[in-house]
């Protein structure tokens, strides 16, 4: 794989939306725009950030761009004790309002129904009423999906909950399986967060200072969580109907940077599993130094085109007209990689 840029922000945007500039819809937005969702109680596109924080570029990475805002990713916090969705309940100083809420809701519903009466053909008013009903369902479904106490000991061991470093990422992965189980169309998990200044193990995969230290830390985390997720999806009979993609925004140089390595947009690896992918196969190689993609260089356009194809979508046809251009996730590029399809 190759990217157009070796800067974190633009490269993240490119991996997510196909463009190095912010303001374009993320893949999850496009997919839910094209396919909708199978869950009536949960958002169609969910993002599970690392407990350390958001990735470079933050919410722009799961934005809806010029697609309707309902296609924006909804962040669900996975860390123990944090409310799953922002403003899910009246919190802190306002908790006293929760007691009287059912009566308040009844009043609101009656007021809105009365208001709708003579304006029955106004779909926006009706949609807004429905949104409150969904909000009420979210207040039940979101805490339910993030309540992992019902999962068996086997599952907790599989995702290594007890491990101080792997456990949190394991939680994110388990939550992803639960969301997929409940019909959520697109789930995005982040392993690592934006850089901070303090000198320590990096809070992400940006290993400039010390490859052995940081990769030694993060390798088991990603490996542990991802392996558990694939095993778990398969055990639940979900792997064939769930496309799993593991990607990054760019790679590292083959040459040293102190004890670490610098950015390299010329060669990096992504993997895919499940959802119609032919297992045990590779596509493309880098040159002997690992500096540049050599045979079959690909980019996010090809990854997106192939993924959309597996979801039953022609990437050239899923488009929307915006400011004079018929826009799509793959811009004007992208080839389906047929040889990795099952």
């Amino acid at each position, binding site marked *: 794989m190759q990217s157009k840029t070796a800067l974190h922000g633009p490269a993240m945007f490119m991996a997510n939306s196909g463009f190095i500039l912010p*303001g374009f819809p993320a893949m999850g937005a496009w997919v839910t725009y094209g396919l909708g969702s199978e869950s009536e109680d949960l958002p169609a596109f969910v993002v599970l950030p690392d407990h350390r924080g958001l990735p470079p570029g933050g*919410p*722009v990475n799961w934005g809806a761009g010029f697609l309707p805002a309902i296609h924006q990713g909804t962040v669900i916090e996975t860390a123990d004790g944090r409310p799953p969705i*922002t403003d899910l309940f*009246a*919190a802190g100083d306002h908790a006293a309002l929760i007691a*009287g*809420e059912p009566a308040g809701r009844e*009043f609101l519903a009656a007021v809105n129904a009365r208001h709708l009466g003579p304006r029955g053909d106004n779909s926006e008013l009706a949609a807004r009423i429905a949104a409150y009903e969904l909000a009420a369902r979210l207040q039940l479904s979101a805490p339910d999906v993030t309540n992992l106490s019902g999962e068996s000991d086997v599952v907790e061991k599989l995702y290594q909950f007890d491990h101080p470093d792997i456990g949190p990422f394991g939680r994110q992965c388990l939550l992803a399986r639960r969301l997929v189980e409940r019909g959520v169309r697109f789930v995005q998990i982040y392993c690592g967060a934006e850089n901070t*200044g303090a000198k320590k193990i990096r809070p992400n995969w940006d290993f400039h200072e010390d490859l052995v230290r940081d990769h030694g830390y993060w390798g088991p985390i990603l490996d542990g969580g991802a392996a558990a997720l694939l095993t778990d999806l398969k055990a639940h009979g979900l792997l064939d109907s769930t496309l799993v993609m593991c990607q990054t925004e760019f790679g590292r140089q083959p040459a040293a940077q102190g004890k670490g390595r610098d950015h390299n947009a010329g060669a990096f690896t992504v993997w895919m599993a499940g959802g119609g992918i032919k297992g045990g196969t590779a596509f493309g190689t880098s040159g002997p130094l690992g500096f540049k993609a050599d045979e079959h260089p690909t980019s996010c356009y090809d990854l997106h085109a192939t993924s959309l194809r597996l979801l039953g979508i022609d990437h050239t046809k899923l488009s929307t007209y915006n400011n004079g251009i018929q826009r799509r996730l793959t811009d004007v590029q992208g080839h389906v990689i047929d040889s990795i399809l099952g």
Partner: protein
Amino acid sequence: MVLATATSISEAYAPVYRYVTPDRPDLWRRSIYRFIVRSTPHAFLTTLDCPSPANLTPARLETTTALQSLALLNNDFMLRQVGHWAKRLEREAGGDPAAQVRRAYALALSREPDDTELTAAVTLVERAGLPQFCRMLFNANEYVYVD
């Protein structure tokens, strides 16, 4: 209607911005031009369809989502304003629920409540308190939409 201030804490790579709920008279202002932090969009505004400044947006794309419902029902800014509004109603209309409800309808909806509405509202105030009623009126379609 919504105001945001940001305080910046410098870290090595990029400043980290944390939003403060405006809860002082000097922060209660309408904005024509607003300072925008690209890396940390204001969650409340984004939920309410505030467009990304990265895009040319001649007309805002308006949507209706459950997250908007949650924001208007539960957001800290909204609920602090609910508290202020309830106090204002008590100051201006006294302790009688019916008078408070009438004053609330006048301020929020520019009209008098009819008998059914008055009864329902007064019942809510008596059962669940004036702030709860204020909170729900802020969420009513009639308040949110200009007809």
